[in-house]
């Protein structure tokens, strides 16, 4: 019984910890801009200081913000797709084949996972402006791919090692063509891993800030985090807190949806690489 109470308290603590700041930013997004610029303390909007959906319609109506959402979605999806394809090839090789240089691949991936990205933005900026992909989608997609590859390769190779590849042969013995064997046996087994890698890659790309502010300069390619940090409000002397909060909530919605749909897979992916090594 005592243990149960302890668990209940612990559970409540976790929920408060995780959700309170989220509730706070949602609450802030409903404070009116006037209330915020005149000071509106407290967790909930004060009476008369609420804004209804005004902040949201302002944010959605802001063209720079819409553009940034579009950029973020486009860039993150493309980077995720390409990164997962390339990582799948590499992870397959690592899990299934003997070849010289395997250690090199794994070490490279590890080093890159630790790389301080800020130390790259200077030279990358210099390179990108020389070859003309500065402030373009491509200019962000490439570094996103490079920095999500280690994660994707590690996660995928951990998954692939678990796949009983013998079943492929077994299916072929049973009369299936190799394509059928691959599609009916291997693909269903590998799909969850690929999928998990894709989600984690997408999170990284969606979250990135350093590349987002350094390698863009207009709304052509500026992603959401950078756009939020440049957000222009009606009061030039202070940050438009409630508008920003609304923008932040909008930018978080895709993450929440993904989490709600795929929480089990994400946890599996996050821990698989670490534990199974």
């Amino acid at each position, binding site marked *: 019984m005592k243990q149960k109470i302890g668990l209940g308290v612990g559970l409540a603590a976790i929920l408060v910890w*995780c959700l309170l700041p989220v509730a706070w930013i949602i609450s802030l997004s409903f404070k009116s801009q006037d209330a915020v610029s005149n000071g509106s303390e407290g967790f909930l909007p004060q009476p008369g200081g609420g804004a209804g959906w005004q902040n949201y319609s302002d944010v959605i109506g802001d063209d720079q913000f819409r553009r940034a959402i579009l950029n973020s979605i486009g860039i993150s999806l493309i980077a995720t797709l390409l990164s997962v394809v390339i990582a799948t090839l590499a992870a397959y090789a690592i899990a299934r084949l003997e070849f010289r240089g395997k250690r090199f691949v794994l070490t490279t991936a590890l080093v890159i996972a630790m790389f301080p990205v800020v130390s790259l933005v*200077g030279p990358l900026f210099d390179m990108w402006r020389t070859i003309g992909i500065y402030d373009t989608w491509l200019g962000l997609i490439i570094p996103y791919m490079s920095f999500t590859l280690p994660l994707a390769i590690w996660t995928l190779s*951990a998954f692939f*090692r678990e796949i009983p*590849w013998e079943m492929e042969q077994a299916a072929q013995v049973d009369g299936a063509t190799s394509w059928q064997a691959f599609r009916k046996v291997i693909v269903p087994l590998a799909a969850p891993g690929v999928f998990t890698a894709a989600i984690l890659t997408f999170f990284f790309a969606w979250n990135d800030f350093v590349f987002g502010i350094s390698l863009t300069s207009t709304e052509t390619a500026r992603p959401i985090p950078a756009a939020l940090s440049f957000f222009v409000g009606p009061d030039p002397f202070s940050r438009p807190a409630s508008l920003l909060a609304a923008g932040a909530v909008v930018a978080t919605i895709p993450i929440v949806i993904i989490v709600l749909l795929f929480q089990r897979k994400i946890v599996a992916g996050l821990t698989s690489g670490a534990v199974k090594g």
Partner: protein
Amino acid sequence: MTTSTVQTATAKKPRSTPKAPDSDRARAENSLGRKLVAPAIVLMLVVTAFPMIRALYLSLFDYSLTDPDERSFVGLQNYVTALTDSLFWRDTANTVMIMLVTVAVELVIGFAFAMVMHRVIFARGVIRTSILIPYGIITVVSGFAWQFAFSSDNGFVNGWLPFLDDTFDWFGAYDSSIVAIMVSEIWKTTPFMSLLLLAGLAQVSEDMIEAAKVDGATWFQRLFKVILPNMRAAIMVAVLFRALDAYRIFDNIYVMTAGANGTESISFLTYRQVIEQFQLGIGSALSVLLFLSVLVVAYLIVKIFRVDLASARQEG
């Protein structure tokens, strides 16, 4: 960011093809393997190794993007300037402090969370969902949320903390600003830590804990003699990746204080030199130093924990 880790001895040997490979086959496999990993390797190196080499080269020049004609070779002068500058050391100290404090706090809270999640048999989906939200949320958003929470105009923290005056300005001085930054960092990354630790906890055999219980070990003894030593690998992974992540802290600081009151990190300093001041020479030198310091931190952590790992094995 990533959760994967060094290939440890426990890794399963990659399955080779079932039939004994003849040398032709081995050669084909070798070549296929290389072809499959080639795109990944090229991509990873294009955006890291090549720029790093370029940074090394540029760091030897006095080179400002806004005064390109005056570019001149200065040898190691930029490194001397950086390493003898109090700003560099202040920011390094800041960064190390942030890293030590956040990782220590996260380890404790994350472990507590992991224990709860490990034992809880109900509402697992709810917990999993809520714990993933801080993990998935954009760091910039976390920075904003906490900045506004600590604000004396629009926040709630001052109102909730009884010992604080309502007008207390968290961002008015170093101590309170850095606390605010660390709170934001800890909030966002503790869930990640707890998930890694949870996975480690799952590896600890229940039988051993039960056996210790039967032998009359107290809760603390069980924790420190059985549970923790048996999840060292998971702890090491968690600490290594979180520490390196914390050492690169940038987004929160950019959003919350922009480095005011001396709250700059080493990443922020580098960013300012390169991207705001366009001082490619000294900025590149700082980039190189930042990279080297990350390697040192990684080396130290691996070194420290490896010693522990070995001794743990001897005990076991």
